[in-house]
């Protein structure tokens, strides 16, 4: 295999950087707030509720423009998970094993509960929870 002639970590660094930079550059340039720029989430357009990931494109767009509050407004859960996922990517590039938190036995179960509760909560029409929806201007 040609693989042995290449520095694996360098390859990973390139892949990792591209995995962060390309999507950020895309949403920075192409505004997801404009109708028709990106496909709408099928769940949202068919069922009419916010899925756990709804608003993540707009959140990444906010993030790319340095608007942290707007990013949280569009998808707070993604913002909470991003540091964790970024850390995992960094560890993958550095050929280190997953963080202790991700290797925790009940990590998948916790993620399942958190993400399900997140989807339920952001669709409830009561005041403290409805700000969690992906809609614009719920917060700021």
């Amino acid at each position: 295999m040609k693989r042995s002639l290449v520095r694996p970590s360098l390859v990973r660094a390139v892949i990792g950087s591209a995995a962060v930079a390309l999507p950020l550059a895309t949403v920075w340039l192409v505004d997801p707030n404009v109708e028709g720029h990106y496909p709408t989430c099928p769940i949202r357009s068919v069922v009419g509720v916010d899925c756990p990931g709804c608003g993540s494109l707009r959140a990444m767009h906010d993030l790319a423009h340095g608007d942290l509050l707007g990013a949280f407004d569009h998808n707070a859960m993604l913002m909470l998970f991003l540091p964790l996922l970024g850390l995992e990517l960094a560890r993958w590039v550095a050929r280190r094993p997953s963080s202790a938190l991700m290797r925790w036995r009940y990590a998948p179960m916790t993620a399942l509960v958190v993400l399900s509760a997140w989807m339920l909560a952001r669709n409830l029409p009561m005041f403290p929870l409805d700000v969690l929806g992906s809609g614009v201007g719920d917060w700021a």
Partner: protein
Amino acid sequence: MSESDKPTSGDDDWGGSEETPWQQQPPPPPQQPQQPHQPPQYGQQPPQYGQQPPYGGPPTHQPGTPMPNYLVHSILATLLCCPPTGIVGIVFASQVNGKLATGDLAGAKKASDQAKLWTIISVAAGFLGWIVYLALYASASGV
């Protein structure tokens, strides 16, 4: 994206102890046959022979059996692409951990393969969504 790197990444995706992952090997000449699971790390650290990594650290895994649960991939799929398939992946990730904890290696392997399959399905669904969208967009705008 780690799919493309499976042969070399298999053994650092699951829990080893913190100080193990640096696989130390001297830079060999290109013709020298390589062990596929030990990629060389050029010019990073001096070779240290006879130092077996103290595997089998924190959780409950058997040493030497890579058992990725693809949790990161499934969470990414849930939050960025396809919650239905991503959630299925998280469920299988949970099964991997549960079966490893009870020592059911065969069951854990099955769940791991399923989690991997659903990661691939998520990626495929994402691409398919884009293809359908672009096709509809193209036909609507008469390109």
